[in-house]
Structure formats: C-alpha cells, structure tokens
C-alpha cells in the first residue's frame, strides 16, 4: 500500500510536470502542444549526452539541458506556431503532432533505438516510511514538481508578465493593439514550457530509462492531467497529475494491470461527465 502511494505519486509528479509545461504554452498561445512528450524525451537525451557521453558534472549537464530546451522551445514556436497564428486551432494541433513525429524520429536517427539511462544526481540510502521505500530520486522528482508549481503559479498570477501572457492568449490582435510584443511573450512561454518538459525529462531519465518513443504515452498522460485538472488551472494540473498517478498505481494493483490505462480513462470520462470543465476548471465565460 504505502509503496503504491510512493510510486503513484512519483509517476504522478512527472505527469504533472508535463501538464504544467502544456498549460504554460496553452496559457499564452492557446494551443495544446501535442509534442510535449517528445520535448521531454529530447530533454532526457540531451542530459544523457551531456552527462554520460561528454562527462559533464550533473549540475552543468542539467543547466545546459534546460537552456538548450528553452532555446528549442523558441525554435519550436518559430516553426510550428508563429506562421500559423490566427489560424484555426486544429491546424496548430496537427502541426504539433507532426513536430512530435519529427522529433521522435530525429532522436531515433541521432541517438539510436537503444534505451539508455542517466545516473541519479542524488545518491543516498532510500528512505523507509510506513512500510514503503522512497528513493532519493523519487523525492527529488516530487520536490521539484512542487517547487515548479509554486514558482509558476506566482509567475502567472502575480507578475505583470503573466497577465500580458494571458491577454495574448485571449486575443492576439488585441494584445498587439495594446502594445504587447506578442512574439516575445509567446516565445517566452514556449521557452518555459519546453524547459519544463526538459526538466521532466531530466527527472525521469534516471528512473525510467530514455528511449526515442518514451514521450508518446507521457505526453498523452500530461494532456489527460491538464484536462482533468481543468484547462488553465496550474494547481489543478498538479492535483490531477498526482491523482492520476495514484489511480493508475492502485488500478494496476487492485483492478487489473492490463486495464490500468483503461481504468484511468474511464475515471477521467466519468469525471468529465460530472464536471465538464475538469476538477478546478473555471466556467470560462461565454456570454449570450
């Protein structure tokens, strides 16, 4: 039991981080980035390349990865969003899916199909609490997620930049009319969102190995979490993420490992029927 909680929360924290990145990009650019999972994968590989192949110390490898991911976010925005701005969302969605395909296969070409791992940055004896074991890395994952959540929430609600970012998302042309440099704002959002995906990649690589295809299911779960939490709600994403992680762990154990994902999806659909805008979704307005 306690062990299930630990592993559920760890995986849940990763889902939450993916969802946070997704939400950040969404909150400025109004697009769901279906390549978020693939960005995570790239982050994991970059860290491995820096630390394992080129022997950089962990902190340097991590810093370098996050910086590179932020840059990649900007490139991503220039290629997949910028030329499409103002176009219907489903086009942007399709573009991000295609970008995901590109990233995944580039990774396959560059890094090959072998699963590889990243040494855990913190080594130490695992903790034993209430009959469960928590490794340092698991604590690191959960702690980092919480930190990221707090920092992002403050950033989005307290800073002026957060307000401008949300204004940009609401109405791009109007944002330009009040003088917001929308390209920079959205580039920043993509940089942070991609950085968050990279962070998630760094955190999972020591736990779960990196493979070119690792992003697909993590990205999808991040999307589930964003929806369950209520799109646009950061704490909702974290609660949703941890919740999904727990549900999956318990479903795998007590319902059926085969139908673990099915249980997660059924609960999600049932929940959406009761709360059509997610757990914490605001009734985003439509006036008649």
């Amino acid at each position, binding site marked *: 039991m306690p062990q299930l909680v630990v592993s559920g929360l760890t995986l849940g924290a990763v889902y939450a981080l993916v969802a946070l990145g997704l939400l950040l990009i969404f909150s400025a650019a109004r697009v769901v980035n279906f390549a978020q999972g693939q960005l995570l994968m790239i982050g994991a590989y970059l860290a491995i390349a820096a630390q394992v192949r080129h022997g950089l110390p962990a902190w340097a490898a991590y810093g370098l990865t996050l910086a590179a991911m932020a840059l990649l976010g900007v490139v991503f925005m220039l290629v997949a969003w910028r030329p499409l701005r103002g176009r219907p969302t489903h086009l942007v969605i399709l573009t991000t899916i295609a970008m995901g395909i590109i990233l995944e296969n580039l990774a*396959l070409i560059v890094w090959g199909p072998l699963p590889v791992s990243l040494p855990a940055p913190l080594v130490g004896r695992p903790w034993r609490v209430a009959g469960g074991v928590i490794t340092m890395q698991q604590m690191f994952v959960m702690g980092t997620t919480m930190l990221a959540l707090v920092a992002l929430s403050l950033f989005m609600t307290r800073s002026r930049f957060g307000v401008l970012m949300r204004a940009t998302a609401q109405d791009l042309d109007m944002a330009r009319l009040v003088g917001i440099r929308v390209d920079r704002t959205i580039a920043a959002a993509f940089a942070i969102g991609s950085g968050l995906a990279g962070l998630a990649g760094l955190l999972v690589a020591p736990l779960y190995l990196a493979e070119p295809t690792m992003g697909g299911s993590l990205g999808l779960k991040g999307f589930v979490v964003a929806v369950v939490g209520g799109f646009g709600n950061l704490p909702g994403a974290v609660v949703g993420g941890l919740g999904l992680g727990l549900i999956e762990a318990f479903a795998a154990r007590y319902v059926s490992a085969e139908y673990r994902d*099915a249980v997660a999806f*059924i609960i999600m659909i049932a929940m*959406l029927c009761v709360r059509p805008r997610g757990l914490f979704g605001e009734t985003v307005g*439509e006036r008649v």
Partner: protein
Amino acid sequence: MRPWMLIGWALAACLPLLLGSGYAVQVADLALLNALAVLGLNFVTGYAGQVNFGQAGFAGIGAYVTALGALAGLPFWLALLAALVVAAGASLALGLPTLRLRSFYLAMATIGFGEIVHLVLLHWESVTGGSSGLRQIPPIGIGRFVVGTDAQAWWVLLAVLALAVLVAGRVRRSWLGRAMIATADAEIAASLTGLDTLRVKLVALMLAAVYAALSGGLYAGYVRYVSPDQFGNQQAVLLFSMLVLGGTGSIGGCLIGAAVLTVLPEALRFLHAWYMVLYGAGVVAIVLFMPDGVVGAARRLGRRLGVG
C-alpha cells in the same frame, strides 16, 4: 454532379488498369479504406465541429465485429451490417455523456475511448485473440462473388466509397448538414432556433462511427487479418490529419487528404530512417502553405487563374 467529378470517378475506376502492379493497387485500396473513415470523421469534426480522436476505435469495433461474425459463419455482408449496428451503438454510448463537453475536454474523452477500445481488443483474448489478432477471416463477398485480387477489391471499395460520398453529399445538402454546421458555428443560436443540438451532434457522431466501422469491416475482409495495433491512437491521429490536410468540411478534401497521407509515407520510403522525419516535415509544410487544406488551396488557385 459536375462533369469533372464524373471524369474523376471514371478515371478512378480505371486506376488498377493504369497502375498494373499489385503493390500500387494495394496502397490505393488502403487509401480508399482510409477515405471512408475520414469521410465519416468529416460529419462530426468537419461539419458539427466536435473533435473526435475515437475514429480508429470505431474502425476497430467494425473490423472485429465483422471478423468475428464472418468467422462464425455469417455471410460477409451480414457480419458487416452487424458491425455497423454495434458501432452505432458504441457511438451512442460514447456520445450521450461526452458530447456536452467542449473542445479539449471532448478531445480527451474521445482519445480515452480509443484507448479503451484498443485495450479491450488487446486483452479480451478469448474473443479478440489478443495481440495476435484474428486470422483467416473470410474475404469480402456477397453471395457467390468473392473478392480475390487487389484490383477487384479496388472496384468494390470504390463502389462503396461512391455510395458513401453520395450519402455524405445528401446529408450536407439537407437540413441535417446545415444543422451540424450551425451547431458548430454557434451552438446557442442553433438551439434557440429549436434545434436539439445534442441530437444533431449524436447523429453526426453516429454517422462517423458507421463510416469508420464500414472502413474497418472492409479492412478485415480485405486484409483477412485484424490485430489491435491497426486501431490505436496513431491511426486516429492519422485519420484526423487526413481530414485537416484535405480541408475540413469538404467531401473532396477528405478523399484527397486520405489519398495524400496514405501515399506520401509510401512515396518517401526510399529515404529509410529519414522518411518519418520528412513525413512530419511534409505535414508541417502542407499546413503552413495550404492552411485551408488541399481543397482550399486548389480553390484559391482556381480563383487566381479565373481572375488573372
């Protein structure tokens, strides 16, 4: 029907004679099957504006019910008919609770549906044969006639597609088609004209499911083997891409989108490992340079030629 359309259908009927080779005809057959599913998707996504990533799931239901029916000894067409009914039922089960949802929430619910179908196909082994699927499915046929070659399959599938296009056109030009588009464009206004928008969306989803099941059922009889991997999320995304690429809301666009995205990966095969990268890049390029799909681009070109 306009003359150029007639010419198009006539050319299509001659295609196997022009292509000659088995491989090319077989790719063309798969394109027809995809086109059927995309045409269905167009009702619910193109017209009624409801995102649906569950289309591959409906195709899977259609394929498995057809396969099981035919393996159990039903005539192929009867098994196919049963598949359409089951898929229609599944669409109601999915649609009733979820069609009230909006945009991303609906997208997620339909992705979930697709995943659930996939998992059931994979794990309900005693019925579906699990991941090794169902083999030696009786071929497409009616009465004495049985489809034997890829070219025969092409003619049968083309006839089915033509019927599907006819039905799609009739729906589009009727109050139902208008109601679907009205629901997508301004749901509140539509319901205040007295339209039961939930029902309209349900009908659209049901048509989508029936088309998908038709595509899946024919696939089962054509390939004569079904396995869950053909009906996963990747396929759902592919079908969605075909719709967008061709031009959402346009029947011709569905056909073109299905053709392009079935043939493009094949045409890029010579690039080996790079072909998936190029494929992704191709989709991005098409979206960037033909935002309203191939059909929209053609229309714009036509206008320019007409004007200039």
